[in-house]
């Protein structure tokens, strides 16, 4: 009954908070930080459990390192363009862009240009993760064979 009343007779709810547009980028940045933090935890957990002696887990540690670097890259890029809007890109043609920095610093422009190629970090991260899993599969197969062999 109460639910029906709330559904069919809506009214202004003054208790809810209004969100500004900058919340999106901050949330995204917090997400990156959370991802980064989880990767740090993963690295130390693997070391703490002495799993880094196994090749598979060692590769997963490398993957985590690359993901940390990727997160730092992404956080930096988002900070420059979305958060403080110190840099922006303008398309000139199909093959050229203009990197505009607020203070006109070419160094900042080049840094931003490098940060934009973040796949150079996340693809190796995924690749190391894949290699790590492949090694774990091989190790598990060997263990199974060894177990089944009397």
């Amino acid at each position: 009954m109460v639910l029906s009343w709330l559904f069919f007779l809506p009214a202004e709810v003054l208790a809810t908070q209004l969100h500004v547009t900058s919340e999106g980028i901050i949330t995204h940045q917090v997400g990156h930080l959370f991802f980064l933090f989880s990767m740090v935890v993963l690295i130390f957990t693997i070391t703490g459990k002495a799993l880094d002696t196994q090749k598979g887990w060692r590769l997963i540690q490398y993957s985590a390192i690359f993901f940390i670097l990727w997160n730092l890259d992404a956080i930096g890029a988002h900070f420059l363009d979305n958060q403080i809007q110190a840099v922006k890109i303008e398309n000139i043609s199909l093959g050229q862009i203009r990197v505009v920095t607020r203070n006109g610093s070419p160094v900042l422009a080049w840094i931003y240009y490098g940060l934009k190629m973040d796949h150079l970090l996340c693809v190796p991260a995924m690749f190391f993760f894949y290699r790590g899993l492949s090694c774990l599969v091989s190790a598990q197969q060997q263990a199974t064979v060894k177990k089944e062999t009397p």
Partner: protein
Amino acid sequence: MIVSFIPILAVDVAGSVAMVVIALLCLNKARRLREMDPANAVFLYLLWISTGFTIFAVSRAFGHILRQFLILTSNAEVWHTIAPYSGSVNTVSFMLVGLITLFFKQSWHINEKILSSRKSLEDTHIKLVDLNQTLEQKVVARTEMLTSSEHKARRIFEQSLDTILVTDEGFKVSEINQAGLALTGYKKGEMLEKKMGLKDFMTKPSEWERIRGLLEVDEYILNEETDFALPNFTQVRVLITGGVDYGAFGCGKTFHFIIKNINDKKQMEQQIAQADKLAALGELSAGVAHEINNPLGIILGYTQLMLKEASGFEEDLKTIEKHVQNCRTVVSDLLTFSRKGSLEKRRLDVARTIDNVIKFLSNHTDFRKVEIWQGPLPRQSLMVYGNEQELAQVIINLIINACHAVGKNGRIEIETGETKDRQVLITVKDDGTGIRKRHFSRLFDPFFTTKPPGQGTGLGLSVGYGIIRRHGGDITARNREKKGAAFTISLPSAPAEEKEGMGRTQGPKGNRRDIQ
């Protein structure tokens, strides 16, 4: 600053595709790991994180490629509309990956517990298998031991020459071996059907009460002597040892008995005691007879001298002479009973001796209307080595006793035979009153008689006993199963070579003599 867009575009597009491809490959590897060990929580964790990476890679690739496409196709406005959604999905996807990653430690702990539990289970399983195998081996070994033990016990039970009897709490027979069946004369089925108990074998209720009392107080009996009554109305002397068994494995209380037949032993002991007693009596009788015989001779001599002269006391002297003669007869019998020396002996045909005795007795008035039946004779003559006169005297005494036992219209049977151990048997049976149990031990005692005073001296059987013993034989008495008594003389058979050519012409059929 104007720079080339190509490197950024190439890295963005190729990287996005590569991310998706590698993420899918990771997902496949994680799935294989999971299939290899479904119980492994770390592998499950890797599957989750691979799934997260795949979602992350797909959402990111979708966003990046679409963005580049829309910008390059001058649709930047469209991208600006989609961008918040794409970014949000991308944010959620890598936060999801981060969140899953944080659970690695917990997944590891869970997996360690699972592995520990699995290890523990495997160890327990190995121990159980080992225990099971050990148990099976033990069971096999114990079963073999039990079978062997049961076999031994069964053999002891079945092969024992003594009776082994098992009864229930109420002393009813539940198990009995072959020796027991032979001793009691019953069949096992009959015993079980009639629910016979130990009590039913006892001759006297008081004897059973005594034995049961001992069992109730001491829970065992040791070498208790008693008599068992057999179905053929005879008795057998037995020695009982037994005790209670409270059983095991839920079995009820039972009693186990070992019963030994000591009848033969007892009879032998009695015979030895009898022989010893008669030997002592013989010694005594010989001494007494020798001392009395000489004075009697003097009295008789003087009496006869006095009778030759007229003295007026002739009647008195004749009375003295008569009684002295009687005394001399008694003394003579005593001497015969105890005589150690040997008279002239020769080979005798037992059948001929019996014939002569019957002919002799046929003139005796006591044998009128008494049927004497001589049993079938063997084809070969039964030859013994002895004094014919003495043996005839023994047979006469036995027949006279039988005649007195049967009274008028009685029947006396005389049977002869030979045992495997070359003993010639002469049996005199009657259908008279039989011998009382208490008289058995005194039958061959000198002067023992059951006849009224004046009708017998009580020396007949003792004299016969002495004669037979001097001939190396034996004489025994028993009651017949139905009625009457039987006396059996047993004498050693004469050597076989001396019997050759002495075949019997008389047939094997019985020979009835009615003495009229």
